[in-house]
């Protein structure tokens, strides 16, 4: 069973530092391959820290581990991931005549990997 969410990729301090430390370092890799989800949604979907989920957008599909977003940083229904290879895989190539692919506020289906 999958459920629809809105995904927001963005900058984090750790991801920003990771660019300087090197994109092949563990720090950058782990920061850009973890999905934040609001604690309420996690509970509702029976997800625990580190559980893996499949995210599918119109153009791509990735598998990623989840973590609870801190405090009330994320409202229910919204996911966050640091910019990186995974977030780019979910982004479409079409820019709708703007030069900018829709890179934030992506519709994604989230499915728990058994």
């Amino acid at each position, binding site marked *: 069973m999958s459920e629809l969410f809105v995904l*927001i990729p963005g900058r984090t301090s750790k991801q920003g530092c990771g660019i*300087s430390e090197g994109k092949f370092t563990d720090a950058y890799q782990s920061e850009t391959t973890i999905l934040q989800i609001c604690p309420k949604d996690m509970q509702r979907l029976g997800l625990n820290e580190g559980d893996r989920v499949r995210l599918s957008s119109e153009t791509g599909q990735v598998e990623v581990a989840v973590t609870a977003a801190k405090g009330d940083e*994320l409202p229910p229904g919204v996911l966050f991931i640091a910019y990186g290879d995974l977030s780019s895989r979910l982004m479409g190539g079409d820019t709708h005549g703007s030069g*900018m692919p829709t890179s934030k506020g992506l519709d994604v289906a989230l499915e728990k990997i058994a």
Partner: protein
Amino acid sequence: MSTATKNQAATDGSLKIVQDATCTFCGCVCDDIDLSVKDNHIVEAKRACVLGKSWFFNHYVDQRPSCLISGRPASIEEGIERAAKILAGAKYPIIYGLSDTTCEAQRIAVGIGDWIGGNVDTTTSVCHGPSGMAFQGVGEVTCSLGEIANRGDLIIFWGSNPAESHPRHFTKYSLMPKGMFLPNGRKDRTCVLVDVRKTKSAKAADIFLQIKPRKDFEALWILRALAQNLSLDPAEVEDETGVPLSAWQDLMGRMKQAKFGVLLFGMGLTMTRGKHLNSEALLALVRDMNAYTRFVAKPMRGHGNVTGADNVVSWQTGYPFGVNMSRGYPRFNPGEYTTADTLARREADAAMIIASDPMSNFSQAARERLLAIPYISLDPKETPTTRGATVAFTTATYGINTAGTVYRMDDVPIPLRPAFDSPHPSDFEILSGIERRVKALKAAVRL
């Protein structure tokens, strides 16, 4: 420059202090950093934020050769020759990146674009490119960061998270400074944050408005309506934006009462559905506000010299990004000449990527195309983009190893004060070499 690397810089163990060095990690371009340098390593970076410290401390001289052709070490001359042949022989070559290098290097890159009749596009197209389009449609009522520090008594951040992306913006420019007309600094200012997420920046704000995802355009038009004193249906407003009408009315009241209002906006607007229309709505709101008080807008620019790229490409071609030179004169058309499109549509048949990493940041379709065509990369560090390049130049880092000019996010040019030499050539040197060869190759064809 005839061998793979130049001579190593001296490493005698002495401590060198570089005062007022410039950090080029983000668009704040802080030029008050005191660096301590020992054995070609920066050991202290006074006043730098966490991102700036990471930028300086992790700067080591990359031991990779200055030039790799198909993954094998080669001389710089061979690399330049190969690069020039790739670019001069292509039907639809593209030049992309440019936001993390000096204005001097950017200027040469545009020249190469002209010689080869290709596209010149910068990372602006995938950050504030939509705002660039909006500026052309609506205009930008704006000011320098210094004016914000001295006058801004209402500071609104919209779709931006400076606490994590521009950490010193609050302290240097927008919230904390005691300004000429704000003697009590933070106490004299009100800070509002509008965002979908309650980010780390919310702690710094007096008021946080959490809007529904993809409702920036609607929220901005609600404010435009309130500026005109139009009456709106409270239920509809709350349903659309997730924020009660009373909160928007309160904000509009503050905006009208402010002596000098500032709207600083981020990629929450430009990367979300609507894109340039979101930026247009915000710029139009700011323009409207000037009927009541002084109000300005400013995009929060990311890369250290992305603003320089806009300035240099505009100065040379008349347009800020997404420029095509194939007819011998510049044409501008985002969506057609922008790199995300020319790659994803499999139009470009050769590329030169300068100080940027599309192999990490672009869509899968665009990445696949880039890997399928010959391309040249210039980057101080190894990235997924440099790994796939036909010709990969390892270059000196701007600001740390090379001098030059960069533009702060408010279009103020700032000189760089390098800390130590690099054994690698600068972007400027490599691009100048490529330009010379491209010119000669193109001239030979015309004879």
